[in-house]
């Protein structure tokens, strides 16, 4: 057992287990790792699955993955922070991803971003204090033909105007309060 896992276990109340056995998500994650025969080269696939299940990658989860794939925790942390796709903090209930690819940029994505940053009171990469909205930017989502493109909660939207975008985000924020 990794000294670190041992320590976590020690800190837990006697009845608790690591990973928490009641949490079905760990089972699904374990199945995914088994499918990769717990090979260390599956780390990125496993982190994808973990993030899908848990929404973000917190330290205990990273540690669990490190333990199961027999990798040093620092290496798992290094990989998780190298790639933009992985979040180590929880995301907002809603996400707004603004494409900042070249085509969207020349069609005014920067102005789009500025107007949303203003109305939401956050910068790209941040989440509103109430946890409602996360504002993200992407390096080209491959929808350049319909620039500028914005992804509102997983739905790619074509030729977005600042006013429409502001409207959407405002709607989410009011809904939450």
């Amino acid at each position, binding site marked *: 057992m*990794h*000294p*670190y896992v041992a*320590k976590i276990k020690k800190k837990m109340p006697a009845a608790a287990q690591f990973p928490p056995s009641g949490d079905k998500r760990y089972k699904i994650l374990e199945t995914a790792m088994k499918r990769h025969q717990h090979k260390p080269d599956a780390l990125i696939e496993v982190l994808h699955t973990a993030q899908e299940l848990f929404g973000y990658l917190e*330290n205990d989860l*990273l*540690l669990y993955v490190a333990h199961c794939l027999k990798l*040093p*925790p*620092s*290496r*798992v*942390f*290094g990989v998780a*922070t*190298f790639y933009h796709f992985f979040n180590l903090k929880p995301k907002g209930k809603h996400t707004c991803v603004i494409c900042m690819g070249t085509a969207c940029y020349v069609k005014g994505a920067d102005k789009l971003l500025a107007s949303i940053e203003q109305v939401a009171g956050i910068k790209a990469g941040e989440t509103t204090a109430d946890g409602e909205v996360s504002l993200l930017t992407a390096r080209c989502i491959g929808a350049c033909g319909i620039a500028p493109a914005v992804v509102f909660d997983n739905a790619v939207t074509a030729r977005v105007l600042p006013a429409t975008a502001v409207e959407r985000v405002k709607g989410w924020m009011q809904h939450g309060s």
Partner: protein
Amino acid sequence: MAAKTLTIDGRLVGAHENQTVLEAASEAGIKIPTLCHLDGIADAGACRLCLVEVAGSPRLHPACVLKVAEGMEIKTQSERLRKYRRLLLELLFAERNHVCAVCVANGHCELQDLAMDLGMDHVRYQYRFQPFAVDVTHRLFGLDHNRCVLCTRCVRVCSEVEGAHTWDMEGRGAKARVITDLKQPWGEADSCTSCGKCVHGCPTGALFFQGSTVGEMERDRTRLEFIVTAREKKQWIA
């Protein structure tokens, strides 16, 4: 092992076929500046200070990873190379806070030595550093990110020689930093065996022994070499 003959700075030099240009040069007493290279661990080719010119190739090649070849013609010194090396050092000095006068490694720092050797005496670029807190949670050692040049020697030494792999890199680009375990304070990184190899391997004052004061921190690279030779060759040469 087949022997190869190559020319380095106009001198004929013999080498084994698996050697790098850096090794061949150093055996022949030709000095090539290096920073991310450390004898005994794998090379990263990251600092780019060891770049040399190879006849017939339009690109510059890092001597630390370039394998020797028969008839190769290498130039380790030229106006162009010196200029690039100086600029690279200047960029490094502008990246973080390298105020030597208050550094524990003052006088025993590879970065400082390189700057002196290459005549890099002032920085024209905008200083970028944002001050980092110094981590002194470890009972024996300390980590000062402000002095780190991200050479990853600590990462490699810890992983390859000690086998603990306590260190790794977090993030990427200008945001990259060295971390221990899951980025907790070094003192709480359970995988650390407190062997001190990373401290011995660090080229600057970024990793230091607790209690050292300005200019006092000396490292003992021979200790690392001793262990590496012992591991690899089963020879204990004290």
